[in-house]
């Protein structure tokens, strides 16, 4: 990693070197500190859980999830500490009831997932591989270790009059931040780099909100990106929603149970 000050303005050799010889360097990384309470030190641990095909085709196959998640893992691993990556066969348990599983959503600081999603009456839901199995947010309480829950799934942050009911159970455990979609995110060849772009933006210490909105932004495909957090009041929520980064998140105390007075969210809206 090199810092350049005015260098390019007087000397193009390095750029020419990159362009012609491919002698550039790998993408830069800003290490993301760990906040684990289980003794993990150094870079923050992260886990990934994704599903592209479904048992007996109970849900339509998604053609590009493995590449989406692989790209996420590759890029985010440059700044955080990759711990595990699983498909969602039997995933309901380690999404909803983390304590019974060695690796689960609450053993890492960052989790990224991709599968079908839905906004049910009173709960958001994520499709697992197993027939008729879905993980429901009203059965999830996260935040012993997890800081940021990110999912590339449709509708889980739908902004109707039930968003609080769907997400307060999850946030009550102290989870700092959620990224997702209020309507549609597209499975396609043209969008399978979205999570990689999100990771790259976070690596440069941009706010989680801007990182997610911009990561899913596309001049072709109209992804509907949304983020959410909680606060003691509206002002606290606004501050946390817009200013939290992967690097500074530890400066935003976990808000649990009765300390949560407000929920707030941002969408990129038509």
């Amino acid at each position: 990693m090199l810092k350049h000050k005015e260098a390019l303005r007087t000397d193009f050799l390095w750029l020419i070197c990159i362009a012609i010889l491919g002698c550039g360097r790998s993408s830069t990384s800003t290490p993301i500190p760990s906040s684990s309470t289980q003794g993990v030190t150094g870079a923050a641990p992260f886990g990934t859980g994704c599903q592209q095909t479904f048992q007996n085709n109970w849900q339509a196959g998604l053609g590009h999830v493995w590449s989406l998640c692989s790209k996420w893992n590759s890029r985010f691993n440059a700044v955080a500490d990759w711990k595990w990556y699983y498909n969602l066969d039997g995933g309901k348990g380690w999404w909803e009831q983390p304590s019974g599983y060695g690796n689960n959503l609450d053993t890492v600081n960052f989790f990224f997932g991709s599968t079908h999603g839905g906004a049910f009456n009173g709960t958001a839901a994520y499709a697992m591989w197993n027939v008729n199995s879905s993980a429901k947010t009203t059965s999830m309480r996260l935040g012993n270790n997890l800081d940021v829950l990110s999912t590339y799934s449709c509708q889980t942050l739908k902004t109707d009059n039930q968003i609080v009911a769907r997400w307060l159970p999850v946030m009550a455990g102290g989870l700092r931040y959620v990224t997702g979609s209020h309507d549609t995110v597209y499975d396609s060849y043209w969008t399978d780099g979205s999570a990689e772009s999100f990771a790259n933006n976070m690596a440069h210490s941009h706010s989680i909100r801007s990182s997610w909105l911009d990561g899913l932004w596309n001049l072709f495909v109209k992804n509907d990106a949304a983020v959410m957090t909680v606060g003691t009041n509206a002002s606290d929520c606004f501050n946390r929603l817009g200013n939290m980064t992967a690097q500074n998140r530890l400066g935003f105390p976990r808000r649990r149970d009765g300390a949560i007075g407000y929920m707030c969210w941002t969408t990129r809206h038509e």
Partner: protein
Amino acid sequence: MNSRKNISILTLALLSSSAFAADFPHRRELNARSLAVGLGVSSVMPLVRTAGPGAPAVLERFLSRWQQSTTSITTAGDYELTQDDTGLSADNDRDGWSLKVSGDGTAVTYRNWAFHDAHSVPIDFAQRPPESTLEAWGRRFLDGYLGTDVLVGPNEQRYPLSARYDTFSYQPTDLSAPAVDMVIGNVVVFTRAVNGVDVVGGGSKVAVFFENDGTPYGFDFDWPNYVTPGGSMDVLSIDEINAQDALLSDYQFDASVAVDTRLFECGYFDAGIQFHDAQALIQPGCAYQRTATFVGDPDLYAADPTDGLMQTGFVDVVPAARLPQFDQFWPQVYYAFSGEHLRSAGDDPGQQ
């Protein structure tokens, strides 16, 4: 059951009018025309995307242009230079701006993240800048900042395409008050038509990002020069296009699945420089952006047919030339020629 034909039929029936709420008239007309007649012409002259001057030269040009700027569009200060397989980036993490030039230099992305995070003052959603204001701001920006980059040739036209709003909403968790919706940012997107035919896809697009007071804080463009190498390509009718969709779509659904077409746009398909095959022509195509709704929880669905539903979004771009030419980065063309689905690398990681 293969219900590809169902998709084609439903395309006509279920095009969501609400999806066009923030689209400009040109896009609404493009969608309506595409649904009715496809491209609406019997043949087109294919285009070639002229190679740009290269990412290094363009990066240097933009870095120099705003090096002394103290406005929201600036490249002042230290920056970190990186390269990946898509292009070159300069990032000033301290002051919060980033500049990326992709591929051959015909696509550029700029953000002043720190400025936006510090200046995104919420206003009531009802007071958001109307589309006409965003269009005016956008045109002013293009003239003032990108006048030598986003050029419009003699047989070309530039149109406002869509507007998007970044919201901030909040609600007390005791539900003692309803959610309050505000706006913290605005985006306007322009597109281009060549020889009277719209360019669909990520190519020939320019987006400008504004604060609520009209201050720009970012832009994206993918805006090549096109030339016509000669010859023409016969174009399929809308019925033939829908038949091709049934054959080439990446997705198959049971007849019980509800498919909703959010966007349907026919024209020259230019996916943008990141997905451009330098050996391929810019050919006619029709882009479908659709959602499919499935039962995700049978018990909930049985009790209430509006409950327990899950959704997915998917994209297909069907070649609309009667004799399309090969393009290694166009999934449906690739499938038509090879019988194989185009995928980036990635494998099932296995079960915990």
